[in-house]
């Protein structure tokens, strides 16, 4: 995946969540965004995922410029996948139907075929036992895994994950991270934000440190974690790695 972001600005009221942000990634399978809360990770991810439009600036993914037009953005969202921190699943539908419904209504598969595809997606991540449960009957980790299964069921070009494990306990975090690693190894392009530094180091091709609406530093994980160049990034890492 190739990514080119130029002078991106997004304001919420007076807060500049993205403040002239530029980012250039030549080739990376997995791009991980790290940084302090409120620094603009989520905003950047939402802009890249086509859930919001920037006030200013240009985003190019794989050489294609991201439009700001409503229908073009909808088409863009359809060919990618997006997962939030929590409450991704539709609570009135079983796991199976959560996956089958978009396949049928968005991607145009006939209902029977959509159900078969949903079953395959669940089977791939060992979730078939939970196919007929409602989200409320699943643990947080299982919900996130079903959420990921839904996001990749239509073979998205890029999978966006916004702090997918922040609302989970350590054990569930591990099961979700394993699944993401599996996906990365299978060749899925992923852009994700996380607070799990160990995971970022293990799975990322490129790590971007985002703070105050800007990219402070971008480099492969080995370099960034061993010898961060920017002072902000040094301070952040020394703080989060202390315990």
């Amino acid at each position, binding site marked *: 995946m190739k990514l080119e972001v130029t002078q991106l600005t997004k304001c919420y009221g007076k807060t500049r969540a993205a403040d002239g942000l530029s980012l250039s990634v030549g080739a990376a399978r997995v791009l991980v965004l790290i940084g302090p809360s409120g620094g603009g990770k989520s905003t950047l991810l939402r802009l890249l995922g086509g859930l919001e439009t920037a006030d200013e600036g240009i985003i190019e993914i794989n050489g294609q410029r991201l439009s700001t037009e409503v229908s073009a953005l909808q088409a863009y*969202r359809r060919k990618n996948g*997006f997962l939030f921190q*929590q*409450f991704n699943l539709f609570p009135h539908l079983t796991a199976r139907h959560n996956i089958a419904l978009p396949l049928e209504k968005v991607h145009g598969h006939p209902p029977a075929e959509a159900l078969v595809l949903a079953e395959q997606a669940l089977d791939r991540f060992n979730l078939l036992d939970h196919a007929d449960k409602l989200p409320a009957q699943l643990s947080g980790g299982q919900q996130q895994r079903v959420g990921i299964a839904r996001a990749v069921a239509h073979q998205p070009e890029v999978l966006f994950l916004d702090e997918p494990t922040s609302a989970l306990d350590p054990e569930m975090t591990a099961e979700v991270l394993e699944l993401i690693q599996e996906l990365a190894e299978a060749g899925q392009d992923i852009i994700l934000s996380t607070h799990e530094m160990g995971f970022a180091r293990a799975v990322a091709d490129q790590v971007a440190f985002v703070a105050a609406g800007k990219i402070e530093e971008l480099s492969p994980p080995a370099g960034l974690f061993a010898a961060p160049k920017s002072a902000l990034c040094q301070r952040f890492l020394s703080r989060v790695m202390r315990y």
Partner: protein
Amino acid sequence: MNRRQLFANVLVAMILAVVFAWLCTSLFAVLGKQADWSKTWEYREALWNGWLVTLGISFAALIGSIFFGLLFMLGQRSHLVVVRCTCRAFLEFVRDTPLLVHLLFGYFVIFAPLLARPLGEHGLDDKLIIGVLLLSVFEGAYLGEILRGGVESIPRTQWESARAVGFSPFQVYRYVIFPQALRRVLPAMAGLFVSLIKDSSLLSVIGVAEYFYNTRNVISRSYAGLEGYIPLAVGYLILTLPVAWLSHWLEKRFRHET
């Protein structure tokens, strides 16, 4: 229930039964002698026809109010400020004036001058049609607010997730928001439909020959007392009780589900 509560319950029940029995006997002592149930039987056709008209009005206005309710709900969520404000102002007007005023104003001032002749020429009952329309708009205004509350109670993440999987705005409502919102507002909607059935009796003021109108005519023609008013009350109960029971049942069912 312990013994003291049991005793208190029995005592209160007995007192209430005695009061009710006393009320009934003293009323029947005055009115019962004159009650002549053959009058009710004699006018059965008028009563039955009126009841059927009320049933029809209720059913038609129920459908109509759902239509207008959806319209008002969507209008209030529109991106256009003008649409939003107009909707808000109209709803405020409808909700802050009595239905009786609406019916009189709406029929005699607005619709009758416009529609009475063309509808009459097609052999249609203009009072009935305009009455149902006005009732639908009135109840639709309340329904619109109920629906809006339901739709706005769905958390933001659901809208986002629905957008993220690629649903169009229509699909977001159809497959994600409405199924969840309707569950939440069903009891309130059922309550509104009970009101709608009762409110249909007000159409008598513009001369629609529904149950209340016909019964009142029968009573004034035959000088009936109890034998006219009891069927009147029972007739409405037959329509409203099933809806009320349905609402309680729904309330229980969805309370356990979430």
